[in-house]
C-alpha cells in the first residue's frame, strides 16, 4: 500500500473532524486549550445538522464567551451580565417557533444571574441553557466564582476558597433539576472526543424537547480555564478530571418521561 502523505490526509473525505459550516472564519480569542472553543464547535455542528440556522436566536453572556456571536453564524443578542435567560424568555414567548438558547458562564449564571436562571427554569420556558462551568471568572482575570472548589486558589481567594467564609460551591444543575419547569438537566464535558460526542447528543435531545415544548433544558458543561487556573491546557484537563468531575459528577440529573 502506498504511503499516506499529508495531502491525502487533508482531503475532505479523509477528515474525521471538519469545521462546521456555521462556524465563521473569524479568529477566536480564546486561550489555547480552553473549552469554550470546543463547546462552540459542537453547538455549531448541532445547529447545522438539525438545520436550525434560519430559526435560531442565541443569547450570549458577559464572560469570555461574550463575543460568541463572532464565531457562530446565527442571529445573536448580547445580554447584560447574568440576564440572558430573561432575554431568552421574551424571545421565545414572542416567537414560539424559534429555537432559542443561552450560553453562559458560571459567574454569569450562578452569581449575578441566579434569579434569572432559577425563575426562567421555574417558569419552564421552552429554551435551552448551555452552562459552561469552569469554576472561575475567566474573563476578568481568574477571580473566585460561586462554583470555585473548596480550597481552590483564585485571584480573590489567594489562600484557597474558605467555605466557612465563602460558602460551598453552588451546584446549579442540582438546583434547577428540582424545579418542575425543567425537563432535561444534564452535566457533560468537552475535554475528550467521547465527551464532545455525548455533549452533542445532549444538545440534540434539547432541540427535540424544545420542539416538543417540554420545558427548560439545562446542559452544564464542566470545563476548564487554563489561564485562570494558571495551568497548561494538559494540566488543566487533568486537574479538571481529578477535582471538578468528582464534585460535579457527569451524567443526566433529570430526563423527561417518555
Amino acid at each position, binding site marked *: 500500500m502506498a504511503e499516506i502523505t499529508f495531502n491525502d490526509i487533508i482531503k475532505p473525505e479523509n477528515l474525521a473532524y471538519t469545521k462546521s459550516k456555521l462556524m465563521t472564519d473569524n479568529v477566536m480569542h480564546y486561550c489555547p486549550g480552553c473549552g469554550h472553543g470546543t463547546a462552540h464547535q459542537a453547538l455549531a455542528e448541532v445547529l447545522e445538522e438539525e438545520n436550525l440556522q434560519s430559526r435560531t436566536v442565541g443569547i450570549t453572556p458577559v464572560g469570555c464567551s461574550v463575543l460568541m456571536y463572532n464565531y457562530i453564524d446565527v442571529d445573536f443578542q*448580547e445580554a447584560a451580565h447574568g440576564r440572558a435567560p430573561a432575554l431568552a424568555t*421574551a424571545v421565545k414567548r414572542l416567537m414560539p417557533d424559534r429555537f432559542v438558547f443561552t450560553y453562559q458562564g458560571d459567574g454569569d449564571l450562578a452569581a449575578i444571574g441566579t434569579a434569572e436562571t432559577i425563575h426562567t427554569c421555574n417558569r419552564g420556558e421552552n429554551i435551552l441553557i448551555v452552562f459552561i462551568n469552569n469554576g472561575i471568572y475567566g474573563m476578568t482575570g481568574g477571580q473566585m466564582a460561586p462554583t470555585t472548589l473548596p480550597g481552590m486558589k483564585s485571584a480573590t481567594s489567594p489562600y484557597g476558597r474558605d467555605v466557612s467564609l465563602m460558602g460551598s460551591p453552588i451546584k446549579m444543575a442540582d438546583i434547577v433539576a428540582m424545579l418542575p419547569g425543567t425537563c432535561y438537566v444534564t452535566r457533560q464535558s468537552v475535554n475528550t472526543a467521547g465527551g464532545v460526542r455525548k455533549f452533542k447528543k445532549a444538545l440534540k435531545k434539547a432541540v427535540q424537547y424544545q420542539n416538543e415544548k417540554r420545558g427548560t433544558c439545562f446542559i452544564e458543561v464542566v470545563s476548564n480555564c487554563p489561564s485562570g487556573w494558571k495551568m497548561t491546557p494538559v494540566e488543566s484537563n487533568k486537574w479538571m478530571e481529578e477535582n471538578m468531575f468528582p464534585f460535579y459528577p457527569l451524567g443526566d440529573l433529570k430526563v423527561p418521561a417518555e
Partner: protein
Amino acid sequence: MEKELKLMKGNEAIAEAAIRAGADGYFGYPITPQSEILEYLMEANPQATTGMVVLQAESEVAAINMVYGGAACGKKVMTSSSSPGISLKQEGITYIAGAELPCLIVNVVRGGPGLGTIQPAQSDYFQATKGGGHGDYHLLVLAPSSVQEMADFVELGFDLAFKYRNPVMILSDGAIGQMMEKVWLNPQKKRSEEILPWATTGKPASRPRNIITSLDLDSERQEKFNLKLIAKYREMEEKEVRYEEFMTEDAEYLFVGYGTSARLCQKALQLARAEGIKAGLLRPITLFPFPKKRLNELADRVKGMLAVEMSAGQMVEDVMLSVNGKTRVRHYGRMGGMIPTPEEVVENLKSFIKG
C-alpha cells in the same frame, strides 16, 4: 371602527391603550402606584385576542431585560414601574439605548429617595432626561398631564421609539396614574407581522446574521457610535419638541410646569390673572428634547419664569439653561408626595415678582 369613550384611571388607560396600539409584549413587576397596569393586562388577557404577551417577571431587572430581548426581535414591547423599580431597570435601559432598540418604559413616579413614599412626585426628572444609567445616552421622554395623554402617549411613544430606534419613557406620576377621567380610546390595531431587517428573528440565507449588542472593544469605532447617538438626539431636538402654551401672548411672568404641576399651574394662572397679574404657562410635553428654543424666545418677553415641580428643583435647571441668563428664574416645589395648591403657587409668584 370608531374611537371609544371610557372613564378610566390613568394606569388603566395605559394598559388598554397598549393592547389597542397592537403591542406585542408587556413585562412588569408590581409596585405602587402603578400595579393596575399589570393587573389590568392580566385581567384583559390580550394573549387570547390580539396575541399580546403579558408576563409578570421575577424583578424589574428581569422585566427590562425581557423588554431588551423582545425589542431585539423588532417587537413592540414595553414595561412599567414606579421610581424604585425604575432605578433597578437602569441597567437594562442603558443596554437598550446602547443597542439602539425601540421600547416603551412607563414611570409612574412616587417620592424618594429610597423607598420614599407611595404618593406622587416629580423627583425622577434628572434620571429620566439625563440618561439614568451609565454612558452617554438619552431617552425620549413624554410627560402626560391627563388620563387622555396617558393613553395617547402609548401609541405616540411606540411610534417615536421605532422611528429613532431609541427607548421612550412616559414620565407620569402617582396622581395621574390613579385619577379617573374620561378618555377617548383608539380602535384596536392589528399587531404588526412585519419582520424588521435588523431584528434577530433567525437568519435566512438572504442576509448576514443580525447581532444585537451594545459592545464594541474598539475605541475608535465606539466613539463613532457615540457620535451617531448624539446626532440622533440632535435630530430629536430639531423635530420632536412638543409643548403647550397658555396665555403667553401678553404674559409678563411665566409658569413652567409639566404633568400634574402643569394642571395646578393652569388653575394658578387663572387666580393670578384675576388679581391682575399677567401670568402665562408653558407646559413641556417632551422633557427630552426640552423646549429650549421656545423658552429662550419667551425669555425676551417676560420678566421672570417660575418653574413649578414636585421636586427639590430638577427641571428648573433646564429652564435656566434654556434662558441662559436672559431672565430671572426661580423654582417652587413640594416634595415627599405633597402636591402644591394653586393658591400656594400664586403666593410664591407674588413673592418672586417682589424680587
